[in-house]
């Protein structure tokens, strides 16, 4: 059974913190109840236990290969994709009429967490469901019926084809072209790089959701359109023919080696066809729907890998005897103590736990908001949308940046063994490193947070967030044990407001470089405080449970409260240093010429 995540913690967050079953009061989700939620998670866990976790190391050691234009992946990938397709898990969140079961995203995000904790190298289905979601949301009936059922069955692969050799973070510079044809399709020509799952032999077809410019379109982001570009295209007689999408390179990566990252070349033989999704020149807007989901998905991957690393290092720490307690150093005849008894090892473990469970909570908060956006209307919907928009870059960044540090601490717990291939920590350390880069780097997310999300609608989004935090503070104040932490969080929200107020004048003066020069540090501070909010919410739920249980001991809730306190005492104080820098008038990076950096 699973040793890479805690089902107890998942249930606690779902039912005691986020009250998942309340979603079933909305008509859209009324076909569900706790039993369906639990069964879905059981099925996901079973697949993760049997088809993913056992092959974590194997898919890393047997990387995809590109030979003679064909990409071969580990044979278990096909078995895995068939299993998730047969179980109906790829499109579980889709509407009934599109073959889904209208499962709340809150539950879907937990499935993602379980699967990525088991084996993040198998990152295929998130891409497929994202592509299918884009087609169903913006595509024509013909595109939906041609592609979506195959994608949701796990027999076809979906991808996001955005990046080009000269256009990574700067999508306005993409050059892949689309020439309209009389039959309504487009002739596609260009190159795409870093396309995850961009080609492989575990599926019958690969469907790229690709950004390209229609000939004559405006420059910049306003001239980008979205196309469906399949590896094999359907002809009028119902057969499939090669669509001139060539796999011209495969990247050999530091981690996540189970999924190929492809260099694709389209239209070398002028025979690559694409079909427009939605309206011309609106491709980037459409793609942002997928990217926002993908950003939360990447955050979830960070939290998931950190979870697997935490439980691996915890198990080791409980079994590894080394040295004596610091106060018993002279008792050389006494047996060595387990390393979990050393305060510094406890600190590393608690740090990991605080990052994993705090991150997961923030990500589930976002998933719940996504569900509420779906089922509400008017101002209520707009408010949920604004909150989700604000929290998305934070939920992408905190779990990935802090996840890297958490996995590093996990590796450290194992000492020299952690650096060897005898334990999985070295692989986890390699695997998680991409997550602060995927789907918009930490720098991009930070500029999005400070430059856009904090200011849209005259700062309505942060006002909504602080109002939500205020509700948590009010509830926490009713428990004596939580009062000091509520007070601490109240001060931290004030610190964010102070720093934000000091930076906004630069934006109003049009000095955007000054405004955003330390956006990444601002993000770090903002993330610490946001996750502190999530920990206080968990603390409230744990206190409630303890009062309900009375004298019945349950170490789980005590552990929750202890970790919450650890987070407030060890992580939250770091905001002071960050705020000091952010309020500092010395602008060394802005004024530094490149000749100074030798």
């Amino acid at each position: 059974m699973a040793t890479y995540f805690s089902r107890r913690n998942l249930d606690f967050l779902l039912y005691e913190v986020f009250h998942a079953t309340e979603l079933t009061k909305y008509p859209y989700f009324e076909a569900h109840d706790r039993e369906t939620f639990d069964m879905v998670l059981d099925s996901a866990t079973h697949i993760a236990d049997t088809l993913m976790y056992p092959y974590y190391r194997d898919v890393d050691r047997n990387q995809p290969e590109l030979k003679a234009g064909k990409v071969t992946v580990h044979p278990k990938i096909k078995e895995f994709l068939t299993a998730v397709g047969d179980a109906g898990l790829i499109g579980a969140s889709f509407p009934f009429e599109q073959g889904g079961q209208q499962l709340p995203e809150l539950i879907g995000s937990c499935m993602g967490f379980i699967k990525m904790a088991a084996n993040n190298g198998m990152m295929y289905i998130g891409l497929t469901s994202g592509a299918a979601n884009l087609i169903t949301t913006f595509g024509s009936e013909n595109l939906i019926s041609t592609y979506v059922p195959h994608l949701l069955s796990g027999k076809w692969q979906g991808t996001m084809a955005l990046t080009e050799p000269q256009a990574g973070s700067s999508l306005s510079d993409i050059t892949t072209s689309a020439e309209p044809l009389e039959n309504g399709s487009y002739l596609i020509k260009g190159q795409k790089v870093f396309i995850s799952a961009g080609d492989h032999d575990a599926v019958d077809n690969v469907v790229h959701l690709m950004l390209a410019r229609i000939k004559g379109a405006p420059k910049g982001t306003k001239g980008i359109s979205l196309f469906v570009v399949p590896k094999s295209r359907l002809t009028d007689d119902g057969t499939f023919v090669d669509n001139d999408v060539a796999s011209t390179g495969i990247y050999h990566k530091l981690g996540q080696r189970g999924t190929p990252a492809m260099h694709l070349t389209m239209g070398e033989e002028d025979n690559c066809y694409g079909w427009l999704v939605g309206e011309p020149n609106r491709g980037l807007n459409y793609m942002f729907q997928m990217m926002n989901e993908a950003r939360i998905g990447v955050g979830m991957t960070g939290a998931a890998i950190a979870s697997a690393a935490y439980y691996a290092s915890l198990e080791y720490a409980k079994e590894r005897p080394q040295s004596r307690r610091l106060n018993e150093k002279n008792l050389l005849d006494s047996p060595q103590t387990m390393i979990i008894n050393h305060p510094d090892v406890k600190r590393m473990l608690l740090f990991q736990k605080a990052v994993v469970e705090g991150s997961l909570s923030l990500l589930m908060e976002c998933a719940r908001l996504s569900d509420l956006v779906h089922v509400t209307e008017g101002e209520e919907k707009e408010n949920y949308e604004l909150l989700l928009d604000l929290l998305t870059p934070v939920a992408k960044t905190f779990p990935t940046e802090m996840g890297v540090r958490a996995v590093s601490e996990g590796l450290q717990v194992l000492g020299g063994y952690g650096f060897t291939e005898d334990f999985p920590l070295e692989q986890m350390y390699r695997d998680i490193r991409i997550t602060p880069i995927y789907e918009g780097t930490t720098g991009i997310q930070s500029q999005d947070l400070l430059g856009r999300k904090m200011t849209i609608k005259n700062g309505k989004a942060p006002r909504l967030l602080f109002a939500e935090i205020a509700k948590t503070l009010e509830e926490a104040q009713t428990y004596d044990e939580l009062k000091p932490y509520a007070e601490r969080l109240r001060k931290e929200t004030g610190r964010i407001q102070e720093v934000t107020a000091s930076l906004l004048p630069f934006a109003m003066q049009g000095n955007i470089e000054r405004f955003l020069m330390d956006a990444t540090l601002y993000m770090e501070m903002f993330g610490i405080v946001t996750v502190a909010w999530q920990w206080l919410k968990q603390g409230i739920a744990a206190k409630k449970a303890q009062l309900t249980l009375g004298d019945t001991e349950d170490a789980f809730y005590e552990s929750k409260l202890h970790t919450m306190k650890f987070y407030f005492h060890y992580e939250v104080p770091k905001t002071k240093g960050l705020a000091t820098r952010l309020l500092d008038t010395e602008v060394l990076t802005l004024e530094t010429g490149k000749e100074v950096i030798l």
Partner: protein
Amino acid sequence: MKILVCISNVPDTTAKISFTDNDTKFNKTGVQFIIGPYDDYALARAVELKEQHGGTVTVLNVGESESDPQLRKALAIGADDAIRVNTEPTDSYFVAAQIAHIASQNSYDLILMGRESIDFNSGVVHGLVGEMLGIASYSPVMKLDITGNEAKFAREIDGGKEHLSAALPLVLGCQEPIAEWKIPNMRGIMTARTKSLAVVEPVSVDDSTVLEKYALPAPKGSCRMIPAEEAEQLIALLKTEAKVL
């Protein structure tokens, strides 16, 4: 063909076991429950047999409402309807009597269950049910096929397995590799909500076991690795520390 599959509601194999009320009650707080793994094999084979031969699969549990999620899961896997005998399953004889009572009211061709539950592991319920109903029972059954009114099956015996055939009806205690566990798919999960789950009251049974106290086994000691070339050290430790020589 009418198949009855009896399932137990047991703690997950990784659950931490503890007791309350002076060690007279199992502490269920934070414990995740599952369908008994051997029962799960029986259920999987029953669903396969239904797919091959037609008929119905009824799933039965003797337990309180906390068993309902496992019954729903069985329905999601492919059972057609469920019955729960609403009572605490106090011992094997009591449970067997409840199963036999339900079975006697419906003429099932096959009554399948795990070879044993994984909480109390008595492994006698199938034999008791067969005795109470006056039909043959076999366990542990590793392979099962049905042709007409005849069952052909293999069961594990000391040193190997024996291949048997017998006329239906039968009571069989099952184990792997009779079938592979099935996982509920989304469609099954959603349709399970609309399938019947009948709750019936138990029949009275005399002479139930009276529980006095639970106790955990002594914790296992830590493992020490002694290099093969240092056998003398191992002997010395067995004498001085383990005191078994």
